């Protein structure tokens, strides 16, 4: 999983800055893609893989801060590192509040930027991994029959087989069989596992 290609998206209107940042990112093993504007970035097809964005605050057209707000709305959850021509404290505060990884003033130390990029990529990697797990879980859950889903909900709610049988008007043996199917299909090794999955799936526990 760690040998997956990491990628840094660079958005800056100055070609010199774009080129130098691209070179720096590649020199430490990240793939880099640069864009002249946020519009170009949004239009592009973005490869998979853990990534982050290095974004100039001052851009023609849409500013970096506006872009930050917009991406949240578009469901793009890439971590953002801001770079700015001049340190503007109110601007950096609002960027950090909106969830930016870092706010660097040009010229910056390369290590500061690389550290921030590293943190951003790790964050994205974790995000993506969590998302992938959740997707898998979701798929498995969808693979359950409606009856099995019912049983699962009651199981994670801490009810005994007997109680479940009474509630669903089934025999205890049938409940046991369903329960084994749930554990198998959800790939849960133990009851705590199953409870955790349910929690992650945000299952609505039926109320009595």
């Amino acid at each position, binding site marked *: 999983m760690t040998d997956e290609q990491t990628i840094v998206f660079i958005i800056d209107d*100055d070609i*010199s*800055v774009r*080129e*130098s*940042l691209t*070179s*720096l990112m*590649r*020199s*430490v093993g990240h793939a880099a893609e640069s864009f002249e504007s946020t519009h170009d970035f949004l239009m592009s097809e973005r490869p998979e893989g853990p990534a982050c964005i290095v974004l100039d605050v001052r851009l023609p057209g849409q500013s970096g801060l506006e872009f930050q707000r917009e991406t949240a709305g578009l469901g793009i959850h890439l971590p953002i590192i801001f770079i700015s*021509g*001049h340190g503007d404290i109110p601007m950096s505060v609002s960027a950090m509040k909106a969830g930016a990884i870092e706010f660097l003033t*040009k*010229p*910056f*130390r*390369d290590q500061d*930027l690389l550290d921030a990029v590293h943190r951003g990529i790790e964050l994205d990697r974790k995000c993506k991994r969590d998302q992938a797990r959740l997707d898998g879980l979701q798929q498995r859950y969808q693979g359950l029959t409606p009856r099995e889903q019912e049983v699962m909900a009651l199981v994670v709610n801490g009810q005994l087989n007997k109680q479940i049988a009474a509630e669903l008007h089934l025999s205890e043996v049938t409940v046991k069989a369903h329960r084994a199917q749930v554990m198998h299909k959800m790939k849960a090794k133990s009851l705590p596992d199953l409870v955790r999955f349910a929690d992650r799936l945000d299952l609505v526990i039926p109320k009595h």
Partner: protein
Amino acid sequence: MSLMGTTEDDVRSFLISLVPPGRHQTNLAVFTVIMLICVLVLTLPFAHIYLSHTEVFVPAYAAAVFVNELITTTLLLVLYSVQRSTAVLALSMGYLFSGLLIIPWAVTFPDVFAQLRLPDTGLQSTVWIAISRRLGFPLFILAYLMIRDDALSIRKPFHRVRRAIIGSITGISFLVGGICLIVFTSDDALPEIMRDARNISSLWQYVPATALLLYAICLITLWRRRRSLLDLWLMVVLCTLIFEVILLSYLGGGLRLSVGWWSGRFFGFVSATVILLVLLSETTLLYARLARSIAAERRTRESRLTAMEALSATIAHEINQPLASMITNADAGVRWLQKSKPDLEETRTALERIVRDGHRAGKVVESVRSMFRKGTQERGPVDLNGLIAEVLRCSQSEVTIGHVTLQTEVDKQLPLVTGNQIQLQQVVWNLISNAIDSMRPVTDRARVLRVSCKRQNRDAVLFSIEDTGIGMTLDDKNQIFEPFYTTKSDGMGMGLMFCRAIIESHGGQLWMKENIPHGTIFLFTLPGADEILPDMRAST
């Protein structure tokens, strides 16, 4: 043009004792006189009618004249303290003399203060006080006309002005007191002018004749001179005084409390009021003009500042951008080399980009420099004294608003320097406004701005500007000429950097030192014109 020359011209265009009367003002004065003549003519048929028991109005009349003449005195004294011309002082004392004498005149007027049971000062007191007043006032006007020190003596120190004012007021008070004393104590010894409380004796006829003669002399002198607004309206005053005498003494037949006598009093009141009204209206007009010019100046200053800030920010951004990518490229290059298998191709590309960005930054610097150079092509001989005067004139409102005492020390023999007038002006302007700003928080000592300009050695000029402001910390001192370093909350930190650049481009130096015990001194030197441009001098 010397420093004082410019200031003088500026003040000249504002003081009513120096500004020549405009056509509008002249018309108004002529109209006033015509109206007064109409009143005079209208009174003629009724002049001899006696209005009994009207002496009750005498105190009101006296009080009104007293107040008006006292206010006129005050305003003229203020004018004197600005213009510092003894002639104006003499005129103001005339009003004070006249105003003070009206009080004993009213008090001794027969039957007016009967209820007060004042000791009887005799039948002749009132008329002798009136005579002193009538003959005294034109003498003061004559003094105003004779004293010709109107070369604006603004450099007369203020403490001397104050002493002159206090001395004159004391003198006039003693004079009035003395007149009263003589009149009251030696009523019997004085020649008899009043036969009774209402009628005059034959001796009286010499008084109006003398008064008219004096008025005529003043009027003719004023007519021939007629150089200021004040002169113009003094002529109106003299006309009213002449009408007053004519009514009181001839048309009214010397009969007290007659229609002629009362309309004479009316003219007397007008004469006490004319100058007051002119002074007041001129002051109001001046105030409006001042407010307008301050607003205009502030706008100019703000726009100049904004333009400079915008320029600085642009330059900074333009240089910062290639600088940032140069650093990043260098970092990348180092990292390509540090790899276990160094990538020379990538390193070479990074280095090439550094070269390219370096040239780009160089171009920005070059364009900034050429911007300065464009201005410096228009160099010429600059008179620093004139330049300083011009800047001080522009910052007059800041000086006034900041309650700053301005001291200037100039050398009339200053050599011309070669340079760009506007750039040097900006340097001086910048330093002065910094100095004023630095004194804004000071409340426990005088805020003194001292500007001096003198010959340093044979061909160089040394300019210094001292303030008694908050001074600077050691940190400030080390960095104050650095770009973007500022001690002001709203400063860009470009001003002093530009100042130094300009002075150095003129072949001079700009530095600062501490002012003992408070504040800062900024100094710069500039080479004299003949040192830089010997050929230019030869050609002219």
